[in-house]
């Protein structure tokens, strides 16, 4: 009989701790974890029976929360759900002893049990326990979350996050959101508007109308504000929008220029972006409080798509100063840049991993587009996808998954959101009601 520990070992083997040059770029000494195995991991079988409803009003949510937890875990590709109709035991009381033999019999390696109670004023309490079935022991302490009934999905994601972290040793990512561009209309008259949703596509809301073209929204580090490019004035300008109030303002309006490709610095106080004047596009930073602008690049080439390192010390960006689009890293105050991409083809839209160890990018080569990752020194380049048009990766908060835009070819072509594990496994479409592009993944919610 295999124990949960065996699976843990399998997961651990698929990641290899390597201290590399990327650590220098970060000024860190600790080991970096990077997955180098392309082998298939057998998903860990788990069971999440319906949570126990502790009062009549909690009954529907008790089942729905268990479903969301199961979908989160199975959606990683690392876990496989044993469906409810195969269960032998029924969990009718959260505190009753677990009948481990019943779960062993169906080979459930991990078991998640939980309970849901409603309270006055729309309060909701969700508790759960995680068990290693073959060790016949709990894995970690039981946890309890409280919130409003309306936030039941978030509470389910928090349960999943705890389970995922305990079993994989990785940081969690389910309790997070994605801001993106929702698209309707034919290819030659596309309407675009900003929208935000849970990482799994639930709870979608629009943030703007579709009167003017909008592009590439990016969350602030606290997830409360969004930078994006808008053609509201007829010219591309960076706007900043409050996600809660949906109020927006132009960031920096310099007549005769175009500004785009904004991203926050990790401190949330500085924005790095591209400013075009005439034929030239360079990278600048803007201090949000003082409005002070600082120029980081000054070559005649196209310099765009800047992204800060998580420690705020460096900026990775793309430039065609060598003749084609390639990736470079420079100090966050500008100055000399070091080229990091040297493979065949063109490289664009680099994004620094929240872990600091890798850069995700779009690669264009031989008529195909790829999403790839590489170390911050350009080594260990690995292409995760290949299609007619993949672009614009964004990292999950834990740096294990990237989401991106995949557009299909032809007159009826349309974009959709996809996600893929950085191992290249588990490519899947993220559900959205309309065509969708330019996803940006929030940090883990507070």
């Amino acid at each position, binding site marked *: 009989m295999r124990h949960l520990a065996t699976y843990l070992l399998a997961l651990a083997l698929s990641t290899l701790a390597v201290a590399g040059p990327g650590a220098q770029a970060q000024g860190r000494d600790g080991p970096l974890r990077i997955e180098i195995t392309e082998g298939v991991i057998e998903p860990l079988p788990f069971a999440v029976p319906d949570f126990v409803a502790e009062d009549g009003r909690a009954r529907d949510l008790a089942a729905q929360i268990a479903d969301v937890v199961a979908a989160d875990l199975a959606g990683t590709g690392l876990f496989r759900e044993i469906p409810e109709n195969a269960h032998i035991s029924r969990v009718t009381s959260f505190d009753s002893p677990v009948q481990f033999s019943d779960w062993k019999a169906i080979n459930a390696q991990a078991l998640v049990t939980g309970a849901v109670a409603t309270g006055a004023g729309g309060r909701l309490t969700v508790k759960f326990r995680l068990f290693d079935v073959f060790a016949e022991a709990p894995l970690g302490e039981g946890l309890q979350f409280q919130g409003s009934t309306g936030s039941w999905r978030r509470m389910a994601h928090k349960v999943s996050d705890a389970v995922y972290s305990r079993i994989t040793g990785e940081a969690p990512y389910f309790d997070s959101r994605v801001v993106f561009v929702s698209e309707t209309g034919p290819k030659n008259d596309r309407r675009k508007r900003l929208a935000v949703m849970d990482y799994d596509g639930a709870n979608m809301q629009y943030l703007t109308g579709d009167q003017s073209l909008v592009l590439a929204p990016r969350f602030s580090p606290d997830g409360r504000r969004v930078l994006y490019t808008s053609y509201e004035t007829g010219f591309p300008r960076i706007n900043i929008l409050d996600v809660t109030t949906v109020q927006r303002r132009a960031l920096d309006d310099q007549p005769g220029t175009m500004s785009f490709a904004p991203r926050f610095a990790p401190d949330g106080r500085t924005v790095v972006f591209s400013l075009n004047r005439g034929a030239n596009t360079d990278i600048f930073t803007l201090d949000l409080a003082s409005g002070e602008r600082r120029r980081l690049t000054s070559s005649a080439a196209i310099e*765009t798509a800047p992204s800060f390192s998580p420690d705020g010390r460096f900026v990775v960006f793309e430039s065609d100063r060598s003749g084609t*689009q390639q990736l470079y890293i420079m100090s966050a105050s500008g100055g000399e840049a070091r080229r990091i991409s040297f493979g065949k083809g063109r490289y664009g839209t680099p994004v620094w991993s929240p872990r600091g160890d890798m850069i995700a990018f779009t690669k264009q080569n031989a008529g195909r587009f790829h999403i790839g990752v590489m170390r911050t020194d350009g080594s260990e380049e690995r292409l995760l996808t290949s299609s007619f048009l993949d672009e614009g990766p964004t990292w999950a908060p834990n740096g294990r998954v990237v989401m991106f835009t995949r557009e299909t*070819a032809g007159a009826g072509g349309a974009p959709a959101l996809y996600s893929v594990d950085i191992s290249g496994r588990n490519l899947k479409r993220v559900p959205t009601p309309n065509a969708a592009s330019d996803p940006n993944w929030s940090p883990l919610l507070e």
Partner: protein
Amino acid sequence: MTSPRTLLILAVAMGLSACAGGFRGDGAGSGYGSGTGAGAGAGMGVYDPASPQYFNQTVGDRVFFAVDESTLSAEARATLDAQADWLIRNPEYSAIVEGHADEQGTREYNLALGARRASAVRDYIVERGVADARLRTVSYGKERPIEICSTEACYSKNRRAVTVISAGSSS
């Protein structure tokens, strides 16, 4: 024999009706509509030479580029010579030059590439004697294709810069 004045009014009226749906240019700019077929047919082969419709149809409002290039071809320069002449003869108009790219490229890069193309057109027209203040540029990157297939036949028409005429000496 109709007087030139009547002809002008007729031409403008026809031009407007051909642009039903507003003065939407090739992109989102507020100019006199262009685009293939606008104002064509209905026996209207000839516009008043001082009209934006004449500019769009007869002078030619757009030039095309090679893949990932913003260099002006001989054919493009000939079109832009005529655009500059028209703008010099019609000082009551200004223009926005829209730069566009085909879909083969990343979004941000294509915005910058479209800006290069628009800027190349603007610089050329200014060199030909049109006042700098009468021309603005904007890039739409790959956001506003006019042809929607995913082959070079369409891409070659989407890699363009369109000079959109608007009323007013400058903005």
